[in-house]
């Protein structure tokens, strides 16, 4: 698996429109093996904003990045803490990740 986004499942809600694509740069995150580093970055605190291809891991607070726009129902993987997550819609309308045990 190269991308934290795992797309092998059935189509999820909203998947009828094409997903936005993103080029990922190396943000300097060095807590995973080199080939996976561009898929993660540190949360920069107040003032930081998540892009449509990003979601915060609720377990270790790292930002997980995909080459594709994330949508509700997507399963993503957080390599720094090795948590498997599902993308959900939060009460405030933003996307959030919940742990799948």
């Amino acid at each position, binding site marked *: 698996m190269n991308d934290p986004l795992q797309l092998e499942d059935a189509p999820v809600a909203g998947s009828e429109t094409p997903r936005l694509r993103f080029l990922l740069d190396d943000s300097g995150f*060095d*807590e*995973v*093996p*080199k080939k996976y580093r561009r898929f993660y970055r540190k949360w920069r*605190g*107040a003032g930081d904003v998540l892009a449509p291809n990003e979601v915060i891991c*609720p*377990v*270790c607070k*790292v930002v997980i990045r995909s080459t594709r726009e994330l949508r509700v129902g997507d399963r993503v993987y*957080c*390599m*720094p*803490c*090795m*948590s*498997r997550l599902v993308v959900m819609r939060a009460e405030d309308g933003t996307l959030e990740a*919940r*742990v799948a*045990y």
Partner: protein
Amino acid sequence: MSDFLSAYSIQNWLESCPQGYLDGTEFGHLPGEGEPELLLENDILREDAIATTVQMVVGERCALAASSGLINAAPDEGSRRYLATQTLDEARHVEIFTHRLYDLGVRKDQLEDVIRRYANPNLVRFAEVLLEKVDRKDFVSGVVGQNVVLEGMAFSVFEMMHALSSELNPKFGRTLAGTIADERRHVGFGENRIGSLLKQYPEKKPEIERMQKEMSYWMLATFADSFRHNQTQAEMERLGQERPHSDYQGVDLGVLSPEQMEDVLADTVLKEFKTRLGRIGVEYQTPARP
């Protein structure tokens, strides 16, 4: 389950940790990096730094005893191998924080006396609650105590210390950054492994809730002592040294009093406990405030 545990392999640990963010480091920092002159030349600042570092050594010695003690209590091979990597992480933490004591001027023959003198008795009680579960080979309670409560606390404490120190003390900041990276794996294992195990052993929940309440009380008592007796801020002001305006949980640490910092840290850790325990199906118990 096998997929989840296979991610915590020795190979992954090697590639992420020793061959990753620790590559090129020496005792957790870059070769040649030292403690700031200001810290080494000022007795008040140096003593506060020693006292703080002693609490880190005490906490990490507890984590080392707990993670190594839980290896033979683990119900499966994957958890045993993961705990072997955590044991080495914790041993490294003990070593790097002990080495910081030497860098701060503690002689090797003074080490145990210095630790006895500065170790906070409330932190020792915190550790004893956890190690009692480990001694009884209670894997579920032990992992919650170690990987959710102790590591959850350490994660937030180290993040605050990193925000406070990385600008004025890059050596210590780098040491903390590597430790925080380790803690991510530790809290991840705690939540992921226990989240599934508690479904198998729901009868363990009341005992775990009692343990969390007790550990949380001793943790808050430790925070209270540490912040209220810390003289660093007053000494920095006396010296005319500006405090770094670093962000932690959305607040500017450069303008907070020690009591306000204690409140921010305690609230952050307790909120995290509540969230993490809620995710694995354990009801958070509010501790008494010391």
